[in-house]
């Protein structure tokens, strides 16, 4: 463990996050953790960490960091304007930094959140089983708060030889396209309280386009647009119950709020639908002004999508941990009822 980074400027909102804090929702403790779990996990894979190591979550405008030691880093998530010693810093790629290097992460050009991983993981104390910062509870992460200029960050011992990962990159088919078409489609499973809404309310919810408002934060993504009508005024409240991440609450004013990682654990507004797990990263990459619409899918479909994503992450880990080039083509073949992962590389790339 050693001090590896000094924060020269903290950016808009930079915190330490990991997979989340589980097991304490029953006492009112939100899960917290990285909002875009896909980018977060890929960042860790790129530097040879376990998928649940602590990373930096960057919001809208990133930090400027000075390296106090050499390290291997990777930046994933939205497309940020980022430099290493004033040269463009490639994203979705493992990069070596040396003592006194300056990493500058400026504005997000596409998306809203970035994830910076370092080989060994950011080493902050575990609080209730997690290193995630829960800002309102002032716990976890770096002293329970977002970064400030002058903070010095420690890094843990790498699990795998970091040099192995330098230059490794993520093939483009594994990089999510945030907001590619202008309107983000969020797939939802209806319920659990869809019966609190009128037929018109349900239709408006699924047919309208909503705009992300500036009040959005790590607790919730607040939307503006066509008001979603409750069945009656009495149906605008329920007896408070547990809120799963991704739940779409409709309070009295009819404006949807998508509950995110820092959301309260329980609440008294009806939840018309729940965003499926694989689309939660898309929510977290929305900026104020972005447009979203909801698309109903079945739970089975949502779970198949989740399994596909896990397979993708598994393939990525195989590629990155092995000596296979990132440009190799992946095939899964079945021989005598067993699956085999096969990578085919271009011959001219073999001599490296």
């Amino acid at each position: 463990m050693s001090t590896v980074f000094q924060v020269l400027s903290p950016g808009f909102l930079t915190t330490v996050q990991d997979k989340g804090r589980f097991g304490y929702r029953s006492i009112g403790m939100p899960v917290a953790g990285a909002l875009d779990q896909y980018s977060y996990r890929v960042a860790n894979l790129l530097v040879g960490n376990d998928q649940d190591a602590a990373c930096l979550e960057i919001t809208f405008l990133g930090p400027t960091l000075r390296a106090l030691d050499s390290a291997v880093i990777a930046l994933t998530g939205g497309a940020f304007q980022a430099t290493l010693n004033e040269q463009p810093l490639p994203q979705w790629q493992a990069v070596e930094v040396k003592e006194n290097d300056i990493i500058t992460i400026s504005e997000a050009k596409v998306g809203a959140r970035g994830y910076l991983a370092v080989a060994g993981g950011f080493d902050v104390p575990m609080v209730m089983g997690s290193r995630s910062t829960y800002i309102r509870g002032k716990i976890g992460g770096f002293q329970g708060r977002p970064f400030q200029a002058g903070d010095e960050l420690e890094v843990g011992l790498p699990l795998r030889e970091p040099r192995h990962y330098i230059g490794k990159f993520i093939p483009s088919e594994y990089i999510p396209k945030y907001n590619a078409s202008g309107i983000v489609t969020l797939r939802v499973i209806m319920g659990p309280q869809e019966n609190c809404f009128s037929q018109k309310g349900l239709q408006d919810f699924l047919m309208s386009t909503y705009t992300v408002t500036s009040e959005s934060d790590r607790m919730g993504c607040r939307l503006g647009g066509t008001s979603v009508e409750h069945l009656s005024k009495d149906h605008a409240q329920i007896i408070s119950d547990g809120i799963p991440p991704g739940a779409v609450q409709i309070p009295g004013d009819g404006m949807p709020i998508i509950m995110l990682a820092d959301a309260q654990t329980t609440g008294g507004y009806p939840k018309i639908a729940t965003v499926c797990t694989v689309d939660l990263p898309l929510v977290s990459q929305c900026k104020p002004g972005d447009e979203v619409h909801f698309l109903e899918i079945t739970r089975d479909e949502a779970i198949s999508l989740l399994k596909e994503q896990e397979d993708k992450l598994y393939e990525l880990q195989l590629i990155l941990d092995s000596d296979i080039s990132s440009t190799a083509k992946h095939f899964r073949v079945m021989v005598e009822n067993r699956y085999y992962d096969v990578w085919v590389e271009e011959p001219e790339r073999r001599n490296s």
Partner: protein
Amino acid sequence: MGGGKYLSKNFCIKPAGDSALLVQLGNEISPELNAKVRALNLALQHSHFIEGIIETVPAYCSLLVCFDPLKVDPLQLEAELEKAIQSATEHIFSQPTVTVIPVCYGGDLGPDLEFVSDYCKLAPEEVITLHSAPNYLIYMLGFTPGFPYLGGMDPRIATPRLENPRTKIPAGSVGIAGEQTGIYTIESPGGWRIIGRTPIKIYDPFREPPVLFSSGNYLRFQPITLQEYEKIETQVKLGTYEVQTYQLEKGGPL
């Protein structure tokens, strides 16, 4: 289904996204129904959690079961939960405890005591007496870490929320909102009428368990003076303060 020993005859299990199920055991706020929620929660814990369950969120009359869909098929989990509901007889809970929460009412620590007193047409002392008399049932913890949803407040001191919520309410503030009373466990914005503050830490992430009390038990507010507040505040800082807890039936007035 039928049969008297079942936790609930009218339960339903609804999907709440791809990784959670909402088990609804009824639709009212009552100590009896809430006890059933806790009984089911305990039964699930005693069964060492069915494979794939990550955690549960017990509420007034429902239990949110969060699971990993890569580890368990939700239909199979639903079947397991149904079995648990039907086989779990009402759990005999150990004797509930009462945790005493010392509160300094009024003044700077309880800026809305006067408003509550005017609104309810009661002297401030009467508001304090009514507020500190009952043993409040802790139905659930939620909202923010350790925030207790309490039952049993005297309706004579019910007061509507502030029209414009305050941006910062200090941790430990005790407030009234409609017919509810509660304690802010972390500094947060809020619209409850603040009538006092406790110097003790309801929630401390570095303590095990992090929250002083648990659902199914009770708490009682004990009026203290400003001098006592300051004394306890110092003891809390030094780590020498011992929170008073007793068995519901043995001690104290009900």
